[in-house]
Each structure stands twice: as C-alpha cells, then as structure tokens.
C-alpha cells in the first residue's frame, strides 16, 4: 500500500473548538436532561432510522408494495365485512374512507409497538460496544414505522379526492401524527426496557395489540359506545387520536375535544412514567442485554 494514498489524520486536540465535556458516572440524567441529550444525538436518531428503512426496502422488492398492500387489503376486508355484511354505522362517512382513515394510525401503532419492544435487544451488539442515549433506539424505531404511515396518507388523500371530500382540515393530521408518534414512543420505550429484563414480554405484545384493537374505535365509531363507557374508552389515548384523524376527513364533523384532551393528558403522564423507568433501567442494559 503506497504511503501517498493513505494520509494520516492530523487533528490537534488543542484546535478543537469545543467546551470541555464532563460526565460523572453515577449520575442518572433527569427527565429534561435525557430528552435534551436525545436531541443532541438527533443525527444518530435519523441515521438509525435511515439504516432500518434502507435495509428494509433494499432487501425486499415488496418493501413499498407491502406498505401499500397491508392497509388497502385490511380496509377492503373491513369495508366488506363491517360495512356490507354486519352494517356497522360509519357516522355518515363513506365506508372505505371511514375504515382507511382509522386503520392508518392504528396500523402505525400496531407495527411500531412490537418493533420498538425488540429495538434494544435487537441492537444489543451496539449497546455493548458504544455509548449513545439508549432512548434513540425505541425513538428511531417509532420513526421508521412513520414511513409506511406516510405512504398510507398519500393513498388516503387520493381516496379523498375520489370521494370528493378533500379539505384543508387534513393539515390537522400533522399535529395528530406527532401526538401518535409521542404516544407510541412513550409506550414503546417502556416496553423495550421491560423486554431487556423480562425476555417474555415480546410474546405478550401480539396479544396486547390484538386486544387493544377491539378497545379502540377502529372498526366502529366511538359514537356507538354507550354513554356510561365513554369516559372509559376515552382513557385510551388512541381513541382521541383515531377519532380526530377520521373527523379531519369530513368537512362538517365537530371534534371531540374531551377525548383529545384526555388523550394528550394520558400521553404526557405515560411519557413521564415511561422515561422514569427507562432512565432507571438504562444503567443495566449493557450488562444483561
């Protein structure tokens, strides 16, 4: 190997224009400190998400096709089964739009939760070899699932044009999507940390997700739920998100602010609890992962 093509890096430590960083090993970072640290590692967060997306769509020809197929086929099944056969009311929304707009956030959640749960164990080889905020793993995984979600949004917009229900209200999807991501991230971070300690957590996830589907107004509108259960069903953060998501496709519908408010409250509380547990558990990840 000729010497001329292998220039050696010459960076002098004195020339580095950075403040001295200091860490004391016994510190467990505070709530804000850990979010701030995650923010300072945002490039890593996006690189990890980019890695997963690249690998996923490079390996399978069907990568993008799958992102289209899954919601569309499920929507068709729901439309036929619940719209034509069982005749579940759809609040006056065209059945395909009703099901598709509820399915998109639901499928995001149903894909993001199992993936986040195994994100720490799946990247154990990194956790053992290098320091970075461990939160970047469940957070990045929750970002990856947004790609399929975005593809679904494009299909939904095409459907809205077809049914002539397009309106500016769908800008509301942006804050709703952030809300959805935050909730999935909060729950996913908690489950991922739990899964490091208790290896059978991942086996419970499909059951959890399946049960959750029936407790969430995806295949039925929340308007059919009896009044005395309405507060109970609103405690599920997905209720407010999915109902609002759906209502953004209809010009005339009014938002259920109570459900949305409860959903936001539950999400914030869950985020606090989840990060508290994560920060506590973080200390032993590299020892047992």
């Amino acid at each position: 190997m000729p010497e001329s093509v292998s220039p050696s890096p010459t960076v002098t430590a004195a020339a580095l224009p950075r403040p001295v960083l200091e860490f004391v090993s016994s510190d467990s970072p505070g709530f804000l400190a850990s979010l701030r640290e995650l923010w300072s590692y945002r490039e890593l967060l996006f690189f990890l998400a980019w890695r997963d997306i690249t690998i996923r769509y490079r390996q399978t020809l069907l990568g993008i096709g799958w992102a289209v197929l899954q919601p569309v086929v499920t929507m068709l099944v729901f439309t036929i089964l619940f719209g034509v056969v069982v005749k579940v009311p759809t609040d006056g929304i065209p059945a395909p739009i009703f099901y598709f707009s509820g399915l998109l956030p639901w499928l995001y959640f149903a894909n993001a939760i199992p993936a986040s749960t195994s994100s720490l164990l799946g990247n154990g080889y990194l956790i053992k070899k290098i320091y970075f905020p461990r939160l970047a793993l469940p957070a990045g995984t929750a970002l990856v699932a947004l790609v399929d979600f975005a593809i679904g949004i494009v299909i939904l917009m095409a459907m809205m044009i077809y049914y002539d229900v397009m309106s500016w209200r769908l800008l509301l999807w942006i804050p709703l999507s952030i809300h959805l991501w935050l909730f999935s991230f909060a729950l996913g971070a908690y489950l991922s940390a739990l899964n490091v300690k208790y290896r059978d957590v991942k086996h419970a996830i499909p059951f959890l997700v399946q049960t959750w589907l029936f407790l969430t107004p995806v295949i039925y509108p929340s308007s059919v739920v009896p009044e005395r259960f309405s507060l109970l069903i609103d405690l599920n953060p997905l209720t407010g998100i999915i109902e609002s998501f759906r209502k953004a496709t209809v010009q005339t519908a009014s938002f259920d602010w109570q459900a949305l408010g409860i959903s936001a409250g539950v999400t914030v509380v869950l985020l606090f609890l989840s990060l508290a547990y994560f920060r506590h558990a973080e200390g032993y990840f590299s020892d047992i992962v």
Partner: protein
Amino acid sequence: MSPAISVEAVSKRFMLGHAQGTTMLREVVMNALRAPFKRRSPGEREVLWALRDLSFAINVGEVVGIVGRNGAGKSTLLKILSRITRPSSGLVRVRGRVASLLEVGTGFHEELTGRENVYLSGCILGMPKRRIDDQLDAIVAYADVERFIDTPIKHYSSGMRLRLGFAVAAHLESDILVVDEVLAVGDGEFQQKCLRTMGELHNSGRTVLFVSHNLAAVENLCTRALWLEQGQLQEDGPATHVIQSYMATFTSSDERVRDLRDIPDRQGTGDLRFTKVEFLGPDRTPLAAIRSGDSLVIRLHFEVHRPLTHPTFAADLHTFLGTLAAQVSTQNDGYTISLLPSGPGYIDLAIECLPLAPGRYSLSLLATDHGGTWADHLQHCTSFEILPSARYGLMRGLRNPVLLLESQWEVTAPD
C-alpha cells in the same frame, strides 16, 4: 490542571447465575401469586467483583496502557470510562469528549455499502455528519477501498472490513481515546498502520487509554501502564517497569519440569488438560540448560477427559516483552492424530535448532478438537531462560534482537 480522567473508589459487581439478571415476567408473576408476601432478596446469588475499589487519575496528554490477565477487569474498566456501563459504586470523572473503540467497525451492517457504513459507524461513534462529509475521501483512501466503496460490505474481505472500520475510528475527533485490543486482529501490515496512527494520535496531545495483550505494543506506545489483577490495581508506573513485573509473574520458578494442573487461568472445554511440560534434550534426557541454537524436545503431558478424534496441538513462544517469536502446530507441520482415548499421555515437540537470542521466553499451549474448538488453552503458562551459546559468535553489542542467524562475512576489495 485537573486530570482528564479520575477514577475514585470504583467497584463493579456482577450477579452470577440466573442468566445474568434477566428473567421471565411469567416467573415474577407466578412467584407473586404463590407467595405474595415473601420478599426475595438478591443476596442469595453469587457475586463477582469485576472491579474493586479502584482509584487512579490520568492527566491530559498521557498515553496509558492497561495490562492484566483475562478477567482482571480491563474491559469492564474501559466500558465504565466509555459510559457503556455504570459502576456499582464509586465515581468516575471524565473531562473531554471520549471516543471509544472497543471493536473495529462498530455498527457496520452487512447490507449497506462501504460509504453508507462510514456514515453509520461514524455517526454511532459520535462524528457529526458534516465532519464525515469532509473526511470521507480521507477515510476511504486510508482504508484503501476506493474501488469498492459503493459495494455492500457483505462482499468485503475481512481485511477490507477491518481497514475501513479502523479508518473511521482514526478520523474521530476526540480529546480522549479509549482502545480495546483492536490490534489483536488483522494482518501485520494493518497492525503496523494502526500502531503508527496511534503514535500520531499520541503526538497530537490526546489522552489515550489502551488495552492490549501485545505487551510490546503497550511498551512502545505508552508512557505509563496500569496493571490490573482481580479488579484491583496491582502496579501503576512507567510502562517498561510495569510490564517487566507483570511478565515476571507468568512463572517464578525456572524448573525444567513444570506442573500445569493448578493453573486456574485457562480456557477451553476441558476435554483435554495439559498437566506438565518437560524440556528435554534430543536424546530425551532432562536438559541442564537451554542455549541459543540447541536441539530441544518439549514434552507436553496431558490428561484426556473425553476421547478426541483428530485433535490438534499448537504452541507459541513469546519474548519477555510479549512479541510473538515463534509459532508451531501439528496442523502446520502436517502431523495428524486420529484418536486420543481417555487417560494420560504426552506429545513430543522436537525442535531442530532454536535460533533465539538469549533471554526469557514464555510458552503458550493450545489443544483443539477436530472442529477447532479449544479443548485447553494456556497463555504464558511457563517461561524459560535461553542462555548464550558460542554458536552465534561473541554475543557482544546486541540490542535485544529476537533471532540469531548463523552468518559468515566475506569481503571483496580492489587490490
């Protein structure tokens, strides 16, 4: 000036048993249901202290080597300094940005191209994207993989992968560099390059912490060495001194027969255990002394605990400073053994001529089964002194070469 790294009374404890702390949620729930008021204390488990009450400080710009046997706590210490794991008690203060290099090619993914992996690994190791953009050409040139940079690394040879991994690490921007046994892999040329780069990093004023079994590299690169023994600091001082006292512990006695049965620091399945080493002359009688250029038979006694088909044997000779001086194996010599039944036995390794310079050498032994799995592996299990002999001249003015050559000179000059 405050030190770059200060470690105060640091201990790290691991719980043994029960799959290292993981468990099943099912068990926890079942236990709680069965006996809801019984408290389970973790004290019943066996405790292993990887580090115990360790304290030291390292100043800015120092290059420090860490030596010690397997399991002495070296890797745990590096992991604590790299923030990968937290100490069980004690305090670690690190001032400055740490780049830790506990393996080559951290975060590499098989399916991604060389270029993509440079970005991924660089980012994981803490390099901002803008800096990777700037350094990409230099990294690729350093690794010498220009032609393959857009090929997925699953098609790379292991050498190319190593070079690319180290190239990324060499371009990290950091105040403190923590390196673990990186040089143990790769070919000679690659190791030379690593060593050269590490030397340059040292000259740039960075603080470097370096763990290696290559004691010669530690001695060359480091001004200071820490010797860890069972999680505690055994010695701290100039690298040459520390390494010499460390090497001296490999064996204290200089017997011609050495019992190996009680050496605890061994690896492998235990299907075969070396029990004894004898140094014999070519006539199979005990030697009084070993001299440069002697013929020699090294008789390795062993006890087979489970019959081995097609086992192999190998031995390494290291100089006192850890340079690998010679390596022999049954495989390399084309000697095959079809079956070793259970019970005691020995194998003779005959060496025609031992052209090594006088000095102290250590012997490492390895026996494997037919699949290459280690049955017994003993590092530096015994050492012996090679004495000068007249065969290689007067032995004057030698500056510690490893090899001696039988040489003649002849001058031709104009009349």
